[in-house]
């Protein structure tokens, strides 16, 4: 039984990194496809599109930091906490990354027609980033209580 609990603890340590990487990959792919499509329709501002499509890459960075914060000797006593924080923060980062990619794709699609709304169109993606930061910061805060 203890082995299973310890395994779950290790799973919790690596989960934010793995799920964050998946989130960034999917989000960047979604927004990247949008920027490629927009480039075929517009005559300029390509760098801006590519820059926006890289927004979801922050999720993997948050995941890496959470992973290092959680990284410690796994015992049956702390494995449950590591598992809970790791898995849930990873899932939160994953959803944030995927939906941020969609928000970036919508922003790119809108700004190809109206470049003047570029800043405003990024607001939804920025708000989603804020939720990702919440998941990240509070994972760090809570992890301080695990022995």
């Amino acid at each position, binding site marked *: 039984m203890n082995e299973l609990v310890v395994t779950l603890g290790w799973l919790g340590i690596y989960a934010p990194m793995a799920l964050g990487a998946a989130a960034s990959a999917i989000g960047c792919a979604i927004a990247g496809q949008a920027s490629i499509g927009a480039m075929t*329709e517009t005559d300029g501002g390509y760098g801006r599109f590519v820059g926006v499509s890289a927004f979801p890459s922050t999720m993997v960075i948050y995941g890496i930091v959470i992973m290092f914060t959680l990284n410690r000797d796994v015992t049956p006593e702390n494995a449950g906490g590591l598992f809970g924080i790791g898995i849930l923060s990873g899932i939160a980062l994953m959803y944030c990354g995927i939906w941020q990619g969609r928000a970036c794709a919508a922003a790119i699609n809108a700004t190809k027609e109206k470049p003047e709304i570029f800043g405003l169109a990024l607001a939804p993606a920025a708000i989603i980033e804020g939720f990702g930061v919440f998941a990240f910061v509070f994972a760090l805060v809570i992890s301080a209580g695990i022995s």
Partner: protein
Amino acid sequence: MSNPDAYISLICSLPGSERLFIAKQPPLSRLRLDRRLKALKPEDARVLQVLENALSWSAYDMDVTDAQAMGRCKQALKEVPQSTLRKLFMERIEMRTVIAAMRLRKRGEGAPSGAFGMGRWSRHIPANWSDPGFRLETPMPWVKEAHQLLESDDPLGLERLLLSVSQKQLKRHAARHFFDFEAVAIYVLIWNIFDRWSQSNAEDAAKRFEALAQQAMANVTDIDFEGVSA
């Protein structure tokens, strides 16, 4: 439900559908649109073709019967698996049913026995044949205006009203689809409306040009056409 991210690149490579109606020049030709639509999966391309063929008047023979047209629509419905596309297809067919009934009534024909056309109102229309809008003003607020335009023999006005209503219906459905196949199909149907719209404008312009030319020529009796005196 289709994959919500299936056609991100394709949708982003198309000019916004709003621009279609405000541009002086078409921002996207059919040739270019077809080139972009090559990115569709074969099964999606097939559904789009079925939908366009069933809704395009030019795909019907002049002597097509009601039964044949309805059979074709029913067959098309079977081949469209996406619920949104089925819904918007039926909305368009219901609109056509109402207009067909109005035209029949204007020709002096009596209420058909049994159901008429396709859709939810096929029994409601014959039952309310004598009412100008078939008592459909609540679900279809445009019927009153359509009736007035038909009675005042304004086919171009009626055509524009129907295109405008169709476009609004499509935009309503488009609000729930961003990068999936439904979004692509709705874009193409809006493009078709734009195409019809611009053609009706061209026809209008041609008619007006002809009328003006005749008016101008009426005052000139001895004009010299290619050296031959009139």
